[in-house]
């Protein structure tokens, strides 16, 4: 088991720079999730940690040792690939034991480790099948099993669940979480799915176009996003963003007026002092609207569509052309009228400047 440290890690493919100076500390035994939209450099970062890609600049250290020039095979890491990458011509048993056998691991120990992994993942009945005879979920288990038998210092997962159907994804997610509790090994997990990130991570690393936007515990990112990108990426459905301008700056905080409806003014208790009249973005999550009259301001929206899921309803609405999603729990008939008035609780609202940085 080991912690990791990335220091100013840069990756270039020829002239194209795809990772721009990543700094990150990962504690021993932590479950860290790299999350971000497709193409933001998550896999590249993971593959650099594995040693499958060269590091163009900066340093990667595992357990305190810089590994930039250490062969992948000597880094004591195991990786689970998105495509599983099982050995197609070998049985499940051989897939698990192959690496150990090739390295001259004692036979009895190999058998013990394989049996142990098979128990953990409940793949005992599959041991004599080949990957081609397995379902996607079973292959995924074998791929994880192959990583477990290595008894690595660090597990790397690259979007391991993205080829599974929704139900299986939830199930495997829980199992991976259990596995982490059971083994206690450091795990780095890449996904573009914020739900996976929120549910699995001790620590989430949000990436955008090769830059780390924010690092933190799932609920910290949810409650206290550093910028508009993180605010929009974490949480489902997405946070609503409404254009606004600074109306006043005073003792109680900053007052913003919506552009869509300037009569809606909201004073947020924040200490930064933006210029009067400067454009800002007001963010509020769908689940944080309150009943009309209970917030610091009321907002009336035109209802487009309402989805009733039983325990909650999602109202797809608009105000002067700006789209909004409003969640109304315990309210089965919300949005059945043409308009809807909801409250805006100032405590639950965020302000972002024109560059998308959070005004605090």
């Amino acid at each position, binding site marked *: 088991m080991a912690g990791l440290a990335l220091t100013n890690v840069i990756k270039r493919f020829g002239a194209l720079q795809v990772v721009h100076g990543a700094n990150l500390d990962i504690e021993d035994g932590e479950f860290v999730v790299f999350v971000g939209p497709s193409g933001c450099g998550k896999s590249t970062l993971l593959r650099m940690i*594995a040693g*499958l890609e060269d590091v163009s600049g900066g340093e990667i250290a595992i357990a305190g040792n810089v590994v930039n020039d250490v062969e*992948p*095979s*000597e880094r004591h*890491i*195991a*990786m689970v*690939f998105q*495509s599983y*990458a*099982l*050995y*197609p*011509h070998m049985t499940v048993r051989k897939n698990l034991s*192959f*690496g150990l056998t*090739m*390295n001259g691991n004692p036979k009895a120990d190999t058998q013990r480790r394989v049996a142990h992994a098979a128990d953990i993942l409940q793949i005992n009945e599959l041991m004599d099948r080949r990957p081609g005879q397995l379902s996607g979920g079973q292959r995924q288990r074998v791929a994880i099993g*192959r990583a477990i038998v*290595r008894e690595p210092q660090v597990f790397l997962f690259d979007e391991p669940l993205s080829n599974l159907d929704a139900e299986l994804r939830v199930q495997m997610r829980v199992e991976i979480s259990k596995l982490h509790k059971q083994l206690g090994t450091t795990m780095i997990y890449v996904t573009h799915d914020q739900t996976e990130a929120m549910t699995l991570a001790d620590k989430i690393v949000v990436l955008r176009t090769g830059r780390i936007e924010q690092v933190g515990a799932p609920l910290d990112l949810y409650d206290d996003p550093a910028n508009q990108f993180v605010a929009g990426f974490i949480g489902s459905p997405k946070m609503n963003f409404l254009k606004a301008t600074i109306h006043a700056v005073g003792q109680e905080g900053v007052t913003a007026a919506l552009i869509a409806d300037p009569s809606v003014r909201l004073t947020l208790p924040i200490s930064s002092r933006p210029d009067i009249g400067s454009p800002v973005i007001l963010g509020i999550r769908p689940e944080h609207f309150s009943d009309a009259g209970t917030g610091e301001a009321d907002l009336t929206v035109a209802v487009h569509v309402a989805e009733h899921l039983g325990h909650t309803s999602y109202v797809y609405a608009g105000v002067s052309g700006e789209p909004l999603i409003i969640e109304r729990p315990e309210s089965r008939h919300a949005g059945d009228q043409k308009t809807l008035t909801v409250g805006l609780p100032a405590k639950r609202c965020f302000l972002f400047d024109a560059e998308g940085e959070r005004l605090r």
Partner: protein
Amino acid sequence: MRVHNRIAYAFLAPYLLIFATFWLWPIISSFLISFQNTRVNPWRFAPSMNWGRLVGDPAFYNALYNTLIILVIQVPVMIALATVMAVFLNSPLLKARPLYRFAFFVPVVVGEVAYAAVFRLMFSADFGIINKIIGTVGISPVSWFDNGTAAMALLIMAVTWRWAGYNAIIILAGLQSIPGDVYEAATLDRVGKVQQFFHITLPLLKPIILFCIVLSVIGTMQLFAEPFLITNRGGPGGATETLGLLLYRQGFTSLNFGYASAIAYTIAALAVAISLLNLFFGRETK
């Protein structure tokens, strides 16, 4: 439905006609001819004449022996070489890959007569470049066309030169169908490059290599152009006479079509038998 079928067959008819006339009929007819005495006019039915002769004909056994020797040496050497070439072509370090791929494939496109002429020149005992080259390392000149063993070696080299690239291209396609992340997984599993080749690449290539072997066996069983053109019609003194050449001599020099047909059927039967053996021993072991 039936009208549709009829129209479909009408479109197929020209092909079926040609297929029947120039494929099916010769196959049937040569089988029938092999049971006839074709050295008299008109031909007479004599079921044991050609087949009986075949069983006891030293020329047949000589040709069979030569063909099998070539098969046993040339096919494995060539397939091994082709595999190495394919791995080389597949290397990410290789620059100008299309150029090499083209170069390896070119021998197949070159006309048989042209390449045979070049080989005859290169291996000429007195002024051939090959003897000059081996002379520089102190080996005395080899009379490639007068020494039976040397002539066989020459044949094997020629056939290998001509077909190795072709097989390499097929094997390359197989290599490229192996996903790269399997190798990455193996690398992280601490499996070395050489072990990866023997434990991952070769097993996954097995069906392709078997296919190449079967193709090559069929080709070698019919080997004709090289012994005819390069080693002077199976020379010296029948030392490189192959079954294909024997067939040609019997059929088109001696005009003994009955015997030639029997030889043709023997070649086909042997090719099928050897290919089946291959497939049998190479099948997926459960």
